[in-house]
């Protein structure tokens, strides 16, 4: 079975630009979450989507947005990139939302902002 897939693997952007990251969940999973992992730290929660609706939002500025499509794939958009946005962006999927459901992570997208 295919796991969570993310694209692209690596990305280099310039300050002020916009970026779109993509995630495909495990087949049958309806919930997708996004996390930012800065080098040397644990992942920080950005968003969770379930059945195409936002179910949770972390402490990130409005430059960060996301959406989930009818096939349950998801996009994370970041506008007006800052140097501090350089990080590994992780997508996780779970069958549903709730504490009983473990989240399965993809390999991540490494974003470098110069």
């Amino acid at each position, binding site marked *: 079975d295919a796991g969570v897939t993310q694209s692209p693997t690596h990305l280099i952007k310039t300050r002020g630009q916009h970026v779109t990251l993509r995630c495909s969940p495990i087949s049958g999973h309806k919930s997708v979450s996004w996390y930012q992992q800065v080098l040397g730290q*644990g992942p920080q929660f950005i968003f*969770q989507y379930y059945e195409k609706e936002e179910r949770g939002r972390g402490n990130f500025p409005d430059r960060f947005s996301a959406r989930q499509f009818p096939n349950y794939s998801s996009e994370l958009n970041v506008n007006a990139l800052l140097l501090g946005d350089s990080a590994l962006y992780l997508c*996780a999927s779970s069958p549903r939302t709730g*504490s009983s459901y473990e989240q399965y992570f993809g*390999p991540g997208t490494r974003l470098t902002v110069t």
Partner: protein
Amino acid sequence: AQSVTQLDSHVSVSEGTPVLLRCNYSSSYSPSLFWYVQHPNKGLQLLLKYTSAATLVKGINGFEAEFKKSETSFHLTKPSAHMSDAAEYFCSIYNQGGKLIFGQGTELSVKP
């Protein structure tokens, strides 16, 4: 508020010796706790989870963790370390809204 604290930023063991990675939690209700492993330049892999069933939880690759409410701890152990266990380990707790809160991580080194 939910939180986890990993008590060691770095642990070094010799191959074949036991592994202990420590995690304390804070929760206003019965928590759901998880341990993940991250190898260099990879995503996170779930090792095990606790969701108010048995307090001793067995995971993949010989790892296990014990939930101790009286000590608010959820330490990860393995009887015998293998070279392939060298990685970063994260303890996490589930919060409302689908949010996992992660600790700062413990880097495990395994010496031959």
